């Protein structure tokens, strides 16, 4: 039993080592292979066009066999940052942090301080959703005028990253046609929040980015 586990772990590390990957997947040594490794970030108008949906994905390249045991880390906070006055400093945050099978959300609210270190203001708007287990249909919470989801999903990113690596490595002169999606058949851990536009600005353009922060 233990031997099998160790073997599986070793094999997994070896496979991850072989496939070096992109959008933001495995982008830097300090986060690669950790539960704080952001793979992707999306922001788009929702099905209800009064809303914006934010998607943060972490833990890339989960094989289906590894997805049932994959989990969010209770020491990792995922923070959506929203700049409403174009100075690239966050005016509002939405913080997501898992506790005991649920993902808790705080915000959107104005943080008391900006930048690399964050705390959670428990007096901010608080919402929660049960983390959807692998194999179950998506559990969605509607709270405080927002929608929430957390759990495993198909990795929405697509790219022939392997061939890009060959080109950068000097082993190929161009992409293949058709290309091959390096991310096909793999999963990620997703956090999706849909927020009324009225809660994150009025009109015009906002600047947004996502951060993974670990408890000190």
């Amino acid at each position, binding site marked *: 039993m233990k031997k099998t586990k160790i073997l599986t772990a070793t094999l997994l590390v070896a496979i991850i080592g072989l496939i070096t990957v992109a959008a933001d997947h495995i*982008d830097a040594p300090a986060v690669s292979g950790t539960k704080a490794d952001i793979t992707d970030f999306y922001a788009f108008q929702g099905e209800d066009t009064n809303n914006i949906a934010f998607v943060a994905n972490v833990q890339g390249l989960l094989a289906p066999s590894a997805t049932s045991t994959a989990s969010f880390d209770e020491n990792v906070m995922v923070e959506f940052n929203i700049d409403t006055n174009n100075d690239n400093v966050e005016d509002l945050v939405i913080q997501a942090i898992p506790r005991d099978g649920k993902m808790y959300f705080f915000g959107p609210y104005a943080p008391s301080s900006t930048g690399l270190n964050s705390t*959670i203001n428990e007096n901010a708007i608080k919402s929660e959703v049960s983390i959807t287990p692998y194999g179950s249909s998506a559990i969605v919470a509607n709270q405080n005028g927002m929608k929430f*989801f957390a759990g495993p999903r198909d990795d929405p990113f697509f790219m022939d990253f392997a061939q890009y690596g060959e080109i950068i490595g000097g082993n190929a002169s161009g992409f293949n046609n058709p290309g091959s999606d390096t991310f096909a058949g793999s999963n990620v851990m997703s956090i999706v929040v849909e927020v009324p536009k009225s809660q994150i600005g009025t009109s015009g353009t906002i600047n947004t980015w996502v951060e993974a922060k670990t408890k000190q």
Partner: protein
Amino acid sequence: MKFNKIKYIAFLTLSLLIMSCSDDSDTTIQIETDFSGTFVQKDQMGRPAVNTVFVSSSSKDEFNTTIPSQQSAMFQSMFQTNLTALSPAFANSGDKNALGQDAAAFTGLLATDVLNVSLDGTTTFFDGTNVLTGRALADDVITVELLLIFGGEDFTENPSLSDDNVSANDKPFLTSFPYLASPW
């Protein structure tokens, strides 16, 4: 081992007794969920593939822990050096991409790694008309970036480098929340 078990059972029995005795109290013991502490930044992302493509290997962690308002000052020149080294479409001075940006202007935009999102309508990385008004799930962001990096002034340069020929996800997206497809 066995003694511990006995102790445990004894303790459990005692606890149950005490609990059943204290029926005069209607206050339930609430276990407060703990959200305390300071959370320190490890990774960040605005636009896709920026750190992967434009930041030199030794600086990738530093880029992830530099706040966006300081990124341009710290990284724009590195981005420009890496762009001109990477792409023949920016090899000569005066070269531009299809947005009319030269190497300095293009990397000046990218070095501040935030995703611009319009609150007024279409949200897309690029759909032929709208540029950088968001990022939708189905946007072929990599081909857009490859075109802007390698495609030159009119998207026709270096055709073998400016499209990875993977244009859609391997599973269809949902029209309703949570939009992402169920896992494999």
